[in-house]
């Protein structure tokens, strides 16, 4: 897999889970939608390799944070996609990870840009 753009950022360990949970907070989505959503929202800065997306989805499902269901979709509802939906446990997990993330970014920025803080 050739590296296409230099502005692509490798995801920090563990952040993908948080991003997925945040994405399905809007409503049920299938794998492709989730990948596309993250890509589009970050103006293609975060390009999700589907290869890492699916193991992550199955891991989250196993932990009970999201639930999956095959549902018909598309214009004529002829095709079925596997939709992932946030569970109650997933919502709690998301809140926890969000606050952890905020703490971390806050801490990092205090070191990087001390002037702005004062």
């Amino acid at each position: 897999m050739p590296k296409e753009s230099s502005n692509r950022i490798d995801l920090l360990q563990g952040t993908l889970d948080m991003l997925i949970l945040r994405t399905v907070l809007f409503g049920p989505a299938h794998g492709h939608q989730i990948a596309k959503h993250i890509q589009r929202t970050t103006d293609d800065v975060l390009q999700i390799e589907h290869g890492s997306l699916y193991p992550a989805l199955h891991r989250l499902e196993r932990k009970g944070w999201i639930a999956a269901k095959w549902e018909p979709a598309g214009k004529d509802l002829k095709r079925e996609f596997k939709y992932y939906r946030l569970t109650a446990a997933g919502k709690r997990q998301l809140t926890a990870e969000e606050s952890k993330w905020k703490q971390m970014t806050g801490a990092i920025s205090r070191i990087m840009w001390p002037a702005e803080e004062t």
Partner: protein
Amino acid sequence: MRWRRSERERDLDRELRADLELEAEDQRASGLSAEEARYAARRALGNGTRVKEEVREMWGWTRWDILVQDVRYALRVLRKSPGFAATAILTLALGIGASTAVFTVVDSVVLKPLAYRNSGELVVSWERVAFLGSDPVGPNPRHVDLWRKRATAFTGMATMSQGASGLTLGSAHPRLVGSVACSANLLDVLQVTPLIGRGFLPEDDVKGHDDVAILTYPLWQALFQGDPNAIGRTVRMGDTPRQVIGVLPASFRFPNKNALRSYRSKQAESSVPEPAIFVPAALDLSKYSWNGEYGNRVVLARLKPGVGIRQAETQLTSIQAQIEREMPAGQRFDKPGVLTAFVQPMQEAMVGDARTGLWLLMAAVFGLMLIACLNLANAQLGRALSRQRESALRSALGAPKWRLVWSSLTENLLLAAAGGAAGVALAAMGVSLFRRSSPVDLPRLSEVHVNVTVLLFSAALTLASSVLFGILPALKLLRTDPQASFQQGGRAPCGRQSKRLRTWLIGLQVFGCTVLLLVTGLFSKSLLNLLHQDKGFETGEVAIAEVRLAGGAYDADANRAAFDDGVLRNLRDLSGVRTAALVSAMPLEGESWIEDLHRVDRPQQEGPLINLRWVSPGYFETMRERLVAGRFFEERDRNLSSAVLSEGEAKALWPDENPIGAQVETENRKFTVIGIVADSHSASLKAAPVKTAYLHYKDRPPYVTVFMARGEQPANALVTVMRQAIWKYAPDVTITRVTALDSQLNNSLAAERFQTFVLMSFGTAALLLAMLGIYGVLSYSTITRKQEIGVRMALGATRRKVYALTLGEAGYPVFAGLAAGFIASVAAGRAIEKLLYGVRPVDPSVMLMVAALFLAAAGAAASLPARRAASVDPMEALRSE
């Protein structure tokens, strides 16, 4: 599991395909051609197989996959070395088979509770009588009567005595069955209800109303083919007609006469029929004295729930003290404390002496199993070392260590499972064979079969053995350093550590083997002692026939005497018979008819105890016993009151004087001593000669008579003609056994023979295994040390030196193991001391023989690899470097 997996797999496929399609559609929408779009979509997804693998790992069921993989791999590896696999499986099958078989017997005989309801409450109550020695004996019926009336520790107490009698239905020939004469409540105490009909009522247990019988299921089947109308029919037991009132359930088991002996020092009888008919004893207590009649009955009782055995025993002992005080004046003892009581669980009473022997066999078979496992461990260790490059390669390619260990354990588990399955099949076969034709009369033999406990045991054993012989090689893999093992080139590295490990294994094997051989040696020597000791009589060419005369006409002494005379005449008339005689007790079946006997001029209240035997003239001549003084019985003694004493008894009564012509008194009658016979082991080969007094048979013609005849040819020819000679005189008597005295002697040593035989086969197997182990280790180390040996020889070492070097390698573990084995066998010897006759637990000659045998075997096993090492060509060895 599998179908769920494939469903998930399809699910994942579908999900990823949908992703690819959507991505391709997106790309097409942005203007790419269909082909390019598909390509781009694949690129976006990444390596599909890897994605799937990662997802699968998320599912967490790869363990199953790994197991399947490992099993396949192990099967492949084993198929590549079929010789090793076959040897390993065979070794394990034999080891597990032998252990399972022995355990089956131990479990059914010793461990499993008796097959009665709440069998833990069932006890046997004995009487201890000070002047009868320390052995508990079956109690006096009057004493039991008071126990039953006064003791509160029991819910029920029953008495019974066992015998054998001829049973006839209609006009059929009598068949010999085991009979139990019991108090009416025996079945209630056992909590057994008849399958059909009724149990005994108290009214049945009264003389005159006691002509009833309850049959066991097998006898009912044999006599009446399971016809329910058997109830009410009449069978003839001996001379007495009895009405069948009930049939016991098929699952009912009752210990035979040997298993529940009324006198514990009594020896097991050969060929005791299984109890098949139960009749009321209908004891008339007024006929019994307050002292005596010991050792004829067994008291079975059921403890009240919550009452302990010691508590019950204390209660009975205090009743015994009351009995001593209440005994009629003439029979009272000189001092108190003569009578006490002993209560033991029924199971313990039944299993008794079989227990030690069985545990010994169990220990021996475990030792053998351990040695077999050590051998396999050694072999596997060798294989692991030679496959080190393969595992190094796997490790270098990224296989985690635990996978290597696991896959090596899988191989062992497979071997063990195959061996275990074959072993259980072998054990089941062996056990059923053992039950059908057991060389020893074990209590509860009919209950011996493979059950769930046994299967669990074998499964545990299989697992344990696979871990035992698999864990060392597996752990070896953990230490594998891929780099080092590649640097070694093609040579299999043989580190110092692994060598030390294998040396230890050899030492352990030698240790186990030594202990086993020493115990075997002790048993063999003990058996030889028993067979070759001076018995005091000669068995060859003697045939014996036991006859039971049943009540009726034979209740008159004169009729029994006439019968004896008639049969003796017929026997003496037979061609080929040199001498014929009779005796009142079967030889080699222990003490019986124990009485006290004292000099008439020195009356004693409690004289020394002797065995009384009623014999005919010619008895000592037929047995070839040695006359010490005086004379043996002659025809004229018929009208005299003569007695022949055994030498020991004569010495005890007359230490300094000549007893011939003196008078002795027993059973309130006086006899004149006419002769002294040398002490003999005719009561038992396993005990010291018993003090015996012999009386002429006309004094009290026995009901159970053993006729004996010494012929000119081997005794087997006499066996048939003896039976005919007896029936010629009286066709209706029950002949319970006809056999050669030699086989009666062999029967009396059956348990010892069997134990020695089993131990010998275990010992031989252990020795072979140890030899194989030594050979394997040495030949392996010779191969790996080829270069070293080459260098040594190039530097001037002689072939002799190299030979000695290799032998020396085996020397340390062999000698250390031998020494440790000797030390441990001292403890083992102590544990089995009771089973040995004429052998001390530490026997230098046995030790010497075992050491010599072992060193010879070890030397033989080591010499082949040593010779191979000595014949290494230094040039060739160095060139192959």
